[in-house]
């Protein structure tokens, strides 16, 4: 059975489905994670992230589909046969062993002679060498989490699965651990699959981010690409936030589609729209929108609105405005000018944006996470967004 453990190469998940009774936790999932890349899995609670990782680790067998590392088909093999280690969401440390023995567990099973030394090095990495002699119950939550990271990392597996490995850490420590993990990942060239609720973490660390919802991948790509051009309304609001509105495509104008959204005409680049006719959900990021007292000229798309709320955050000001249809949009203005525009709730304003930044996603069955789904134009919440 040594064959599985020597497997090397890209991780390939091929149309994998996992059903619990008649509920599909993971639904026909296909993805490839190139060897040595950092892959982040984002998604709301219960969307199947942990289940996906468990199938890669071999702790759960897929109902259908296959999982490969390189050319080795791992489907059906046992967890201990796979060159895969997991940082469990619940840590799952061995309560009867000291921290050092916890970390040395993997190396010992593989017959490493210097297991204790490897363990101490790994503990050094997570800044816990002074606690090596303690038992897990004598550690704080964040310390236990770091031990869990060390215990998996020490094995230098072909694929490392991290299930929200930094969730219990304070911001400073989390940033340090992110840097540390990224460094190890690049140096050793391991494949990391990192599940996180912190989109900033996903964005800054990952080469590829996949957004999962209801057991399916909604969209996958480089972080900047994902942010710039969401393919579904769900992604548009799960990764960052977007001003969205359902409209009807009424024609074209050169490289642009023209759509009627809430009584206004807006333009969407043809190349940036998932739909070319019929109903469309128009979207534009809040920081791409400018706000003016008077109707601007020659800037592309614009729309009239009423200010509802102004919040000054130092480097930027966030405006909540109500557009003609009654929906709320959000606008971020960088405080670049010496004298910022002085606006108050109730003021009539104009918004404008470069139509090149607009995007169109399918409107039917569109799901906007967490936020109220408004009739035509909506602003979604940013789920679990981390303060920078």
């Amino acid at each position, binding site marked *: 059975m040594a064959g599985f*453990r020597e497997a090397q190469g890209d991780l390939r998940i091929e149309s994998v489905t996992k059903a619990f009774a008649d509920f599909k936790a993971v639904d026909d999932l296909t993805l490839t994670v190139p060897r040595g890349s950092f892959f982040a899995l984002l998604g709301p609670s219960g969307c199947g992230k942990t289940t996906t990782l468990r199938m890669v*680790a*071999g*702790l759960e067998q897929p109902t259908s589909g296959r999982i490969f590392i390189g050319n080795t088909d791992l489907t059906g093999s*046992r*967890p*201990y046969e796979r060159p*895969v*280690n*997991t940082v*469990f969401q*619940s840590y*799952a*440390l*061995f*309560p*009867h062993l000291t921290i050092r023995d916890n970390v040395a*567990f*993997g190396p010992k*099973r*593989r017959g490493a002679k210097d297991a204790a030394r490897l363990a101490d090095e790994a503990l050094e990495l997570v800044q816990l060498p002074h606690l090596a002699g303690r038992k897990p119950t004598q550690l704080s939550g964040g310390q236990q989490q770091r031990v869990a990271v060390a*215990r*998996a990392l020490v*094995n230098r597996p072909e694929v490392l699965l991290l299930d929200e490995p930094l969730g219990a850490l304070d911001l400073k420590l989390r940033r340090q651990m992110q840097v540390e993990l990224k460094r190890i990942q690049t140096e050793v060239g391991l494949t990391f699959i990192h599940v996180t609720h912190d989109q900033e973490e996903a964005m800054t660390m990952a080469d590829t981010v996949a957004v999962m919802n209801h057991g399916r991948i909604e969209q996958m790509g480089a972080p900047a690409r994902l942010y710039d051009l969401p393919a579904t309304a769900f992604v548009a609001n799960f990764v960052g936030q977007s001003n969205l509105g359902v409209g009807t495509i009424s024609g074209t104008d050169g490289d642009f589609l023209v759509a009627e959204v809430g009584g206004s005409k807006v333009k969407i680049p043809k190349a940036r729209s998932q739909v070319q006719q019929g109903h469309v959900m128009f979207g534009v990021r809040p920081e791409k929108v400018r706000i003016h007292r008077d109707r601007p000229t020659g800037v592309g798309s614009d729309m009239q609105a009423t200010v509802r709320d102004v919040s000054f955050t130092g480097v930027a000001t966030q405006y909540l405005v109500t557009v003609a249809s009654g929906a709320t949009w959000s606008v971020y203005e960088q405080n670049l000018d010496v004298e910022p525009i002085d606006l108050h709730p109730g003021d009539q304003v104009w918004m404008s944006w470069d139509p090149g930044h607009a995007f169109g996603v399918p409107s039917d069955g569109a799901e906007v996470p967490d936020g109220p789904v408004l009739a035509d134009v909506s602003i979604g919440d940013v789920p679990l967004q981390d303060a920078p």
Partner: protein
Amino acid sequence: MSAVAHGAGAPAAPAGPDTATRGKFLPYLLLLPGALWLLIFFVVPLAQLFTVSLQSQFPGYPGYYYRDVNFRNYLDAFTEFAPHFGRSLLFAGLATFFAFALSYPLAYAMAFKAGRWRSLMMICIIAPFFTSFILRTIAWRQILADEGPVAKVLNTLHLLPGGHITETWMAVVAGLTYNFLPFMVLPIYASLERVDPRVLEAGGDLYANGFTTFRTVTLPMSMPGVLAGTLLTFIPAAGDYVNAELLGSDRSTKMVGNVIESQFFKVPGGYPTAAALSFTLMALILALVFVYVRRFGTDELV
């Protein structure tokens, strides 16, 4: 200024020491009923028994004693009944071993594999307690009797050297094993049930196959239960006399418990011997338990 501060602080001050005192004495207060109970019904009789164990007989008056410090009782009791001590420890040891061998898989299955059958299994283990221990032991006589199914099958297969099970050590050990099984199963089950399945998965994830995970994770984590179960089985089994009485023979399978019983109730003038035997047995068990706990006990024995 300081006077004002002092005045303001004064009314609150008495509350401090008061609650502190109450906090200090509360644990003792809670201990009191139990401690009293132990004192009256355990420590006092024990001391009384100890004095009896040192009494001497009036020569020529069987059944009459005088207060004395006669350690010969211990020597006599031990030399005369050494085989019984040996049997007690051996039978109890065997019963503990078999009970462990039967209980661990059972407790393991209940904790990890039983699913919805778990409660039913639990009931099956506890239900026998609802009938008398004596009756159940007598029932074993029938099960193991020469005309019973077990002896018949073994005899047909020529696997039973003496031809009998009852009246032999086998019946006594079988009875002890049966009677103390729940005391082994329940603590082991309780400790296995607390094992997080994720922790076992972590074993698998870290290159330990099923057996290695069992050896390095499951078994060590269940050690507190194993320790408690073996003690709860071994200690009462070593002092038991019912199984040897009902299932054993008159000669070759008597245990210390039987001797103590007959010295107390049947032999005139046997009181000091019986008391000395009781103390010797207690000392032996204490010593064994001490060594055992030192050897296998862990600091997680909670």
